[in-house]
């Protein structure tokens, strides 16, 4: 995840410091985990409106849109997150999931290769990330015959 330095100009421009955005994001995550998708969406949408570079809010929106069965919107939000940090394995895995959901297996497969390279180069990623990657790999292998 790309880290940004806290700059006064950013606070003045956006109205929020990075720390304030992180606490607001936590409320969105809390609502998401509680299944209150509409409330979570308002929080994440607000954050992406004032600070589009804040990637976790885009990722939160991907979860919300999947929860609402809006696959195309989920894909849009995943692309917004991914384009802001092409080397983030989390953002890339969210995009892969959205590509699978919308039936673009070829693009999902290509990105899986990229994530594999990133994960191979660093063994410190958390267990859930590795599990999720492995699940997507299995998903790709089982559907690759249809390509």
């Amino acid at each position, binding site marked *: 995840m790309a880290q940004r330095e806290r700059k006064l100009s950013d606070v003045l421009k956006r109205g929020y410091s990075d720390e304030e955005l992180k606490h607001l994001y*936590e409320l969105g995550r809390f609502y998401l985990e509680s299944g209150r998708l509409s409330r979570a969406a308002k929080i994440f949408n*607000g954050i992406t*409106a004032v600070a589009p570079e804040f990637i*976790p809010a885009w990722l939160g929106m*991907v979860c919300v849109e999947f929860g609402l069965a809006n696959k195309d919107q989920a894909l849009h939000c995943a692309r917004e997150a991914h384009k802001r940090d092409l080397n983030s394995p989390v953002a890339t895995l969210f995009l892969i999931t959205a590509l699978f959901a919308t039936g673009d297996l070829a693009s999902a497969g290509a990105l899986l290769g990229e994530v594999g390279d990133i994960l191979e180069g660093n063994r410190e990623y958390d267990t*859930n990330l590795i599990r999720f990657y492995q699940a997507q790999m299995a998903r790709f292998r089982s559907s690759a015959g249809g390509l």
Partner: protein
Amino acid sequence: MKLPSIRKTDPFVQAPLVTLLPTLGNLETLTGLKTFLFARYEKVEALRQAALAREDRVPEQTQAEVDMLTEVLDWLKMSPTKE
């Protein structure tokens, strides 16, 4: 037969994508930002009202921020004054 508690279920099994979202801040600290958030709400809501008074379209960013702050203030039990 006693069913296993859902609380003991691995969150990854229930919602794998959600478990990948990073934990960045905390809600206790958010409660300490009440004054700032309310002031910010008043400022942005004034901008929204001004656009409506001019019969302009409210910018999407402004509306999204008002919606977010309304939600946050509701969670903080600080209902913003509405028309």
